[in-house]
């Protein structure tokens, strides 16, 4: 017997349904994405998109001049940062103008604003900066941040139609191809105790009974969150769907499908995951500043799964075993870090 759960429908996310078994659509296409609302908010968003591109081009073409304009020291590091920020601005501008889901793209701009503010904050603390210019630049960024947040919230309300469990819901779809048959991968995944091996943020999963499990995951700022989840659909060698039980710290649900890949390439794994991040969307943005964005995290988790299955363990480099930036050189604590993960 299969029980199905509901999948986000055409309006995006019906979060009031979480916790209640309903219908799940196995094949979702891009038609599930909500159409962009065409009104003034969207025009503001597009304005922000063009602003991003303009600022980005300036940063890319003249990082030196930009460094002087905002009062930070004109050295290699700052020029490189400004160049990289410029590429980010151009990318987020293009994402907004591409317009598939301007809501996400506008919120990505807020993430970028926070990065800018962090950068300016550091510059403010440096003796080598011109503090007056830095303060002016900070004020400008704060103004734009406010506009971004406002636009993001308006867009969000329009997409949700004012409904939904929370405005902070994250919806991720990712997939990967792994060179093993579906039944082997299904069995590996179905034993939830294996998941922390490749899901970076999941610390442990305890299996309570045939359907229920207890999850513990890392949350921003060194805290952790826990919840109970139950399997709502289990099709051997094909798919597993689970969702958190009511009162979870992080309401979430997910499905994983195992599909034979063409030729002898093994299995396509398609994951769909929705969750309500702790601290809402702002919390997610702050988390993003210190790590990868949610869809990137899931992709990276799947890549680690592929490494575990195909090579026997998660592959480390001298830099990758560290959280955040670290030069590509051995470190005294490397062996310990490597062994733990």
């Amino acid at each position, binding site marked *: 017997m299969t029980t199905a759960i509901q999948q986000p429908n055409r309006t995006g996310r019906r979060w009031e349904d979480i916790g209640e078994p309903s219908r799940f659509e196995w094949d979702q296409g891009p038609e599930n994405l909500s159409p962009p609302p065409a009104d003034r908010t969207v025009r503001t968003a597009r304005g922000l998109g063009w602003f991003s591109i303009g600022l980005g081009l300036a940063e890319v073409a003249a990082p030196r001049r930009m460094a002087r304009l905002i009062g930070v020291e004109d050295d290699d*590091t700052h020029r490189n940062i400004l160049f990289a920020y410029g590429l980010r601005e151009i990318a987020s501008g293009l994402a907004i103008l591409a317009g598939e889901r301007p809501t996400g793209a506008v919120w990505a701009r807020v993430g970028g604003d926070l990065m800018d503010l962090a950068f300016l904050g550091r510059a403010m603390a440096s003796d080598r900066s011109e503090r007056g210019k830095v303060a002016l630049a900070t004020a400008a960024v704060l103004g734009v941040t406010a506009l971004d947040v406002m636009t993001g919230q308006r867009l969000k309300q329009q997409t949700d139609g004012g409904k939904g469990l929370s405005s902070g819901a994250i919806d991720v779809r990712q997939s990967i191809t792994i060179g093993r048959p579906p039944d082997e991968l299904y069995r590996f995944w179905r034993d939830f105790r294996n998941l922390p091996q490749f899901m970076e943020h999941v610390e442990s999963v305890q299996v309570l009974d045939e359907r229920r499990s207890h999850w513990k995951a890392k949350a921003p700022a060194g805290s952790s969150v826990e919840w109970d989840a139950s399997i709502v659909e289990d099709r051997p060698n094909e798919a597993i769907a689970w969702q958190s039980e009511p009162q979870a710290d992080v309401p979430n649900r997910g499905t994983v499908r195992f599909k034979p890949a063409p030729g002898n390439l*093994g299995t396509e794994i398609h994951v769909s995951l929705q969750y309500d991040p702790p601290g809402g969307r702002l919390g997610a943005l702050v988390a993003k500043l210190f790590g990868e964005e949610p869809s990137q995290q899931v992709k990276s988790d799947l*890549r680690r799964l592929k490494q575990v299955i195909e090579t026997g*363990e998660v592959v*480390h*480099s001298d830099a990758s075993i560290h959280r955040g930036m670290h030069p*590509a*050189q051995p470190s005294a604590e490397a*062996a310990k870090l490597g062994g733990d993960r």
Partner: protein
Amino acid sequence: MKANCWLGKRKLEVREVPDPKILNGRDAIVRITSTAICGSDLHIYNGLIPTMEKGDILGHEFMGEVVETGPSVKNLKVGDRVVVPFTIACGACANCQRDLWSLCENSNPNAWIAEKLMGHSPAGLFGYSHMLGGFAGGQAEYARVPFADVGPLKVPEELTDDQVLFLSDIFPTGYMGAEMCNIQPGDVIAVWGCGPVGQFAIASARLLGAERIIAIDRFPYRLRMAAEKAGATDVINYEEESTLERINEITAGRGPDACIDAVGMEAHGPAAIYAYDRAKQALMLETDRPIALREAIMACRPGGTVSVIGVYGGLIDKFPMGALMNKSLTIRSGQTHMHRYMRPLLDRIQKGEIDPSFVITHRMKLADAPKGFEMFVNKVDNCEKVVLSA
């Protein structure tokens, strides 16, 4: 241990850093006996490779002695003398199984960065940016070698370091460049760039039976090496004569059957073109200067092959797509599928068909690595290839 660390554009320092440790079961630690500076290291040196960080250990051409093995490494033992391929590959994924080792799907822990730039990620490389893995490089006293059960090649004692060191990159790279030309009897091959990779492309074209090999560069000492050591039949100094006119003359108007770009993203060329690309690169309106590549496409005979082994990092400008399309050219390219070539090329060295040490012009201690870079980048004292030893 001591290691050559990148600190910024044209800033290197040999520093004391922690010794490497086994991080994965399939790792080995190698005590490095010989290591070299690669032309592609100069792109990093010149600040043109993105995602480098202060303190990154450079170097991807190295060999040495195994001093420690992880629990899953069964084919190597402490004391084995090995050459290490610069591309890191797991041996198990679909691309490794297809013999496309530089496209390993599992060896780049930072694949997501490369994906943003290129759509998909290639294999991880030693000492070549965080986008390509963040692996410490081999211009050091020791290195951790991932997938040591798949990559390192044991070398016989009777061969010297100088004879086998270049199996780590430039000999297989030049060889792949020539192999991608699918050389037939009577073929004329033109090679842009007579740095070490160009020399091995020329030497490999000769091994693979090319009739004529045209070497193109601007340094007389490099052209001399190409003709006297590598086996070029014709040389062109583009600062003295027009490359295209001269090639047309040599091939009686046909154009070479295949052209090899062994130059890459920092090409030089005739003054006006060079100034144009240099300016665009400085303004970051293009990241790479494709002067040699453009010329190779223009020179190539209709229906011929352009083989690109020079390193490119990002975007190029004024790419002669019309010539490529209308002349039915085939472009072949890639980071070297090292594991495919190391053993067969070792056989050729053992049989005496080639002695790769002919490219070496300078030997230094690891501690002098920054000086070696400076000499290499400025072509001081006819510098062709610098080998560093511990």
